[in-house]
């Protein structure tokens, strides 16, 4: 906890993040370069043909969509329980990113589904869960924007995020259950051939690092904006 609180100081955070950010950004670019190169060099899948290349941008988007919510949940906990000063900023900064990657997951999933199933949307269990996750993100962002008092908004959204977190496994379970009633098929079935594993994992890492990069930039921006607001308030008084 002490380590966490040392970097909770905005100045320390800015210093540390400023030093680390270039490395994370470069790693992101490297992962994308290698991942895309490998992704386009693999042979077509015997079942899915060349559409298997969509796996390399769909699954990583899935991962980040859920990762972002996890990040928001952790920040929400830090905000409510330990009153970590940067936690509110971090949670708010992550939300639009989470929504963006969720939307990408849905769009790439639908485009993958069309050649596989014949239509863009068949209420596949995973894509349906992601649609609901998108609504969770939108509600979260809407609540933040609607409440005027920043501190209250942060606390309210923290509660909402944690309730959402508790409900997500239930939602996933219920959608899966619902889907088995109607016997849908999932895009991704079980095993992935090893030749696809390398580009997939590298792209997943790349997307995760991309999220981290964008998140850090947004948090740093929010810290500066907060400082500016404080100065404006002092100047006005």
């Amino acid at each position, binding site marked *: 906890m002490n380590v966490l609180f040392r970097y909770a100081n905005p100045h320390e955070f800015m210093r540390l993040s400023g030093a680390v950010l270039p490395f994370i950004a470069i790693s992101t670019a490297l992962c994308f370069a290698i991942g895309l190169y490998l992704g386009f060099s693999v042979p077509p899948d015997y079942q899915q043909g060349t559409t298997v290349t969509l796996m390399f941008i769909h699954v990583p988007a899935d991962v980040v969509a859920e990762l972002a919510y996890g990040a928001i949940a952790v920040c929400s906990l830090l905000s409510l329980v330990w009153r970590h000063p940067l936690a509110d900023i971090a949670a708010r900064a992550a939300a639009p990113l989470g929504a963006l990657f969720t939307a990408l997951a849905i769009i790439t999933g639908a485009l993958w589904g069309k050649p596989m199933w014949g239509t863009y949307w068949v209420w596949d269990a995973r894509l349906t869960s992601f649609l609901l996750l998108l609504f969770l993100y939108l509600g979260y962002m809407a609540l933040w924007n609607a409440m005027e008092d920043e501190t*209250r908004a942060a606390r309210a959204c923290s509660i*909402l995020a944690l309730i*959402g977190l508790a409900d997500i496994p239930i939602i996933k379970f219920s959608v899966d259950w619902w889907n088995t009633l109607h016997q849908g098929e999932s895009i991704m079935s079980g095993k992935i051939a090893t030749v696809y594993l390398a580009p997939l994992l590298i792209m997943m890492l790349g997307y995760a690092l991309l999220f981290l990069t964008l998140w850090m930039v947004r948090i740093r921006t929010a810290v500066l904006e907060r400082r500016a607001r404080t100065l404006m308030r002092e100047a006005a008084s």
Partner: protein
Amino acid sequence: MKLAARSGGSAALALSFFALVATLVPLGVGADLQLLARMASGVLWVAAVLAALLSLDRLFQGDFEDGSLDMIALAPLPLELTALAKIAAHWLSTGLPLTLLSPLLALLFNLPGAASAILLVSLLIGTPAVSAIGAIGASLTLSLKRGGLILPLIILPLLSPAVIFGAGAVSGVLDGTPANGALGLLAAFAVAAVLLSPFAAAASVRLNLSS
């Protein structure tokens, strides 16, 4: 129970809305009785949830606006119990009436008697969850002037398991699957919701009251 009496009007509103939606959908979809029977579980469940939402934004706002919420929060009775009482009052004035009206509306959809009975049971079990989770949304948004628009956006995704299990129980009956599995899952969800929501609602009320 003063709360329930005050919300007699909201029961009429919820019932009218419920009936209205149940009337509009066939108008939009056509009078194919077989199709309607298959749709009934989902349509009626969604309509019931939406109808129950109508009166939610006022759950805490009345007390908030006239200042009595501050006193309730300071009173010796734990805020969690007050929240639970409000959830119960909301259910008695919306969820329960909706449940009782549902067999009649099921007739409009040509739903067979056995399925209609399961619809009633599923709503009976599930609507408390709607009131409970709805109360969390109401307490989070109580300080917002136009919070009524955000409230459904926040809580409808959280309620999706209730709709899935509730409507699933009924449509299962149409296919010959016994409903106990789905109803059991719905009951678990509802119990968890009712037990845990008062804590979240009370915490949200407190944060909105503090300055």
